[in-house]
């Protein structure tokens, strides 16, 4: 019996590695051949060829993203610069009477100066103090503010990647989510974003990659659409540029 | 050029008028059908129930009957579809497998032959009635016979073709399924019949007497006076006016 949790995990790992060998040998045997250990040629990798060159010009990307995101129940605003973003957030927070706001620790969001503009609200910045319970801060927040790493017009999706300064909870636990999307990050297809993760390679991937395509929803009761089941029920996508 | 009629059990024993309509209609295009009377059943009841040994015995009579034919025409997408299963049925008997492949390539469902081979889409029929069409599953899904009957019906003068709601849904026949799972099958044919009645059509037309016998049987059970016909009958009646 292992003494510490770490030792126990190590024991499990040893068993797992042995089992992995027998598992793979078993699969190869059932497939009627010896183990494949070299990468096989994969002639069908990814989307069909006709799809790979498909591109919308910027204005159409904006239009389609807006249509699709709205159709899913989200809100979209087209803004010219970060000044406008600031004004929009300040007004929304005031209108909603938001008391707790949480945002990611990112340069663009730092530059908004929301702390000074919203003196009444309790505004916290993700992981600005490593000793704080940040999940609890996100859970109590009325509004969470994030920068989108990418967006895809075809599906109406925003992509957010996790990092020390970018919590997964910020786009998940607050009642309202605001995602700021610089226009140069808005792609046409999902595949343009996904392929970048292959290119980065395993070691460079963050723990969490999340595609968000509107407010949380469910149709589990009589196929009747309900918005805001577990995640944010109100989502704003702010297209900037 | 030897063009043979594969009459199928149901048209042979119960609906000879369907075979007759096919024979007389094709004669107008210079195709005098040959009828090898050593033919029996395609073997589908045994095949579908898992009795492949028995299905092979039956299939051999068909392979034998149409050995010398250049084209084999049937009034049923399902029975022609069964011939498409012959290569699988004989996959372990090379001497029969080759004959099975050959028969598969020369077998046509009636409208397939008319449209694809003879190039006929307008037989010059007049049929001044309100008609709805049930596309049988095996013909439309497994043989891909979708456009051919539509083309033929589009050219029938005076005929009002009303779309059947949920047309592509199975009528519930399924061969032995209708006997083994009689209550499920009964629920399915009742629903199909409801949809037929919703159209207010005088005539229900199709390409497979098994499905049509099923729906006609339920229409009769409910005392509904909708006339049920094979498309070959309708076209022949339409040119014989």
């Amino acid at each position, binding site marked *: 019996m292992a003494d510490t949790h770490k030792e126990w995990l190590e024991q499990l790992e040893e068993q797992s590695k042995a089992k992995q060998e027998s598992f793979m040998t078993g699969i190869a045997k059932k497939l009627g051949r010896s183990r494949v250990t070299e990468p096989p040629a994969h002639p069908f990798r990814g989307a069909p060829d006709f799809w790979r060159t498909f591109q919308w010009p910027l204005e159409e990307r904006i239009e389609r993203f807006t249509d699709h995101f709205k159709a899913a129940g989200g809100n979209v605003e087209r803004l010219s610069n970060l000044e406008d973003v600031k004004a929009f957030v300040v007004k929304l927070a005031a209108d909603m009477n938001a008391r707790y706001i949480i945002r990611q620790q990112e340069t663009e969001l730092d530059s908004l100066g929301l702390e000074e503009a919203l003196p009444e609200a309790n505004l916290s910045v993700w992981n600005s103090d490593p000793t704080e319970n940040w999940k609890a801060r996100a859970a109590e927040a009325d509004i969470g503010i994030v920068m989108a790493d990418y967006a895809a017009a075809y599906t109406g999706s925003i992509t957010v990647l996790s990092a020390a300064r970018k919590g997964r909870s910020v786009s998940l636990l607050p009642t309202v989510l605001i995602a700021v999307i610089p226009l140069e990050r808005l792609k046409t297809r999902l595949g343009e974003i996904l392929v970048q993760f292959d290119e980065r390679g395993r070691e460079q991937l963050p723990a969490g990659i999340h595609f968000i395509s509107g407010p949380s929803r469910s149709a589990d009761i009589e196929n009747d659409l309900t918005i805001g089941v577990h995640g944010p029920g109100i989502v704003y996508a702010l297209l900037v540029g | 050029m030897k063009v043979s009629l594969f009459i199928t059990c149901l048209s042979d024993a119960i609906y000879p008028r369907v075979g007759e309509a096919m024979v007389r209609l094709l004669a107008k295009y210079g195709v005098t059908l040959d009828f090898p009377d050593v033919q029996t059943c395609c073997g589908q009841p045994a095949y579908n129930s898992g*009795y492949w040994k028995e299905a092979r015995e039956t299939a051999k009579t068909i392979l034998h009957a149409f050995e010398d034919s250049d084209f084999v025409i049937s009034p049923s997408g399902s029975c022609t579809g069964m011939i498409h299963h012959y290569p699988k049925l004989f996959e372990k008997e090379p001497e029969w497998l080759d004959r099975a492949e050959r028969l598969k390539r020369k077998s046509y469902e009636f409208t397939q032959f008319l449209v694809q081979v003879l190039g006929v889409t307008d037989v010059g029929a007049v049929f001044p009635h309100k008609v709805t069409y049930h596309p049988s599953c095996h013909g439309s899904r497994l043989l891909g016979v979708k456009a051919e009957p539509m083309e033929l019906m589009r050219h029938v003068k005076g005929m009002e073709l009303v779309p059947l709601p949920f047309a592509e849904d199975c009528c519930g026949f399924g061969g032995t399924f209708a006997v083994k799972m*009689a*209550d499920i099958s009964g629920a399915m*044919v009742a629903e199909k019949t409801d949809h037929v009645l919703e159209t207010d059509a005088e005539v229900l037309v199709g390409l497979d007497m098994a499905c049509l016998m099923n729906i006609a049987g339920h229409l*009769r059970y409910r005392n509904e006076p909708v006339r049920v016909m094979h498309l070959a009958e309708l076209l022949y009646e339409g040119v014989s006016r």
Partner: protein
Amino acid sequence: MSAGKAVVRPGTVKERADLALNDDFLRKAVRFTTERLRGGKQKAAAEHGNWDEWRERGRQIRLHTIAHLDYYLNLFADNARANGVHVHFAETDAEAVKLSLAIAERRQAKTVVKSKSMVTEELHLNAALDSIGVEAIETDLGEYIIQLAGETPSHIIIPAIHKNRYQIAELLSADAGEELLPDTTILAGYVRKKLREKFLEADIGMTGCNFAIAETGSMVLFENEGNARMVTTVPKTQITLMGMERIIPSWEDLEVMATLLPRSATGQKLTVYMSGITGPRREADQDGPEEMHIIIVDNGRSLQLGDPEFQELLNCIRCGACLNACPVYRHIGGHAYGGTYSGPIGAVLTPALQKNVAEWDDIANASSLCGACYEACPVKIPLHDMLVYLRRRKVESGHGNRMESAGMKGFAAVAGKATWFKGAIKLGQLGQKLVVRNGCIRIKAGPLKGWNSYRVTPSLPKQSFRDKWKTLSGEVQAEAMPLSAETRSRMEQLVREREKGGGGHGGHA
């Protein structure tokens, strides 16, 4: 919470179907939802365009991955481990349960929050956790409802498809200890509030896995509610149970799956959330699990490997489109199938995952073989053919129905010889005299009992087609037109092409 209360159901698919057929509400509820989902799927597929090319692409990716499963699964395991995941392998359901319980005990877990996972349903993991005093809480709205009801999911995607809002309001009111109105917003609002607390206090988050990306060791989840994100973000430990066939090679391949899965399941362009999780939280991260386990489960899946008739079953991406398209499912609902998986995929998967042929009930018979499942399937699994193969295997292994076997032998004897076949028709023409009234047969006894309970059978005409042939042939010969030169040459061309191996004119492979 009663975790996985056993529900006793009748033994045969026929008996279970009868229960459903007599439950008018259930039939209406299932029909209503499947029709909407089916319509949504058709619309989404048409809107996207080139649907068959995408299906074919999806099929090829799945075929390729399964054909090299030892390579890709091994790669996935190595990469996930390099990401810091504790990877485990379970050949059987018992092993998978044992591993899950051992982790829960080690973590001294009191509660486990779960997002939707069909694999854990297969393993009856909730009951197992309950047996060691760990509370397992389903957090998908539909799953939470059926867990309260002590039932199992009756649809892969919409677990509570068979319940209406009044039944749901009753269940949730009992849970809340106060009366909740049967209003979707109120009911969902209650569950949000209740489960929010559970997410924040749970020790373990447990998930299934839609896809696992071999090249980076990432696992991908598709969902709409956000509960799967909760489960993988908030608790300190994450356990993912994954079927060994869930692999795809790359993120690029995920684009194809992300195109096919949501459209086929619900008609959405993409589910509200698609999350790719690559290992536990990084050192400096403030959320995500500190410890992450992935248990790779076989439990009968590898039985399909190397079996040319069933290997494609492993291509399934669990979208539920075949359930929504199936006319049988629509009438009998999911519970009539008697296994974890229902509908056409369940009718094949349930027996296929079990070794013992003798124990299969007649589930494979609950299909009219109409092929709607194949047509709806985003990766083109020929389920209708597989159902026939299952029936054949049962017969070949000597577990066929004795009456039916005798009948089929008789059928082959008659249909194997034209003279006997003619004789049989003759016999029918004579024999029916006893039962024919006004040109039809209404007797509800003997072999026609089930059939005639819903239909009137036509009588056989005096002359069969072959009886008429001679006369007919003579008449036609006399009046036939000549075959045009153009048609003749086209026909000759077709015959020549056929001899060269061509001559395809529709029909599936």
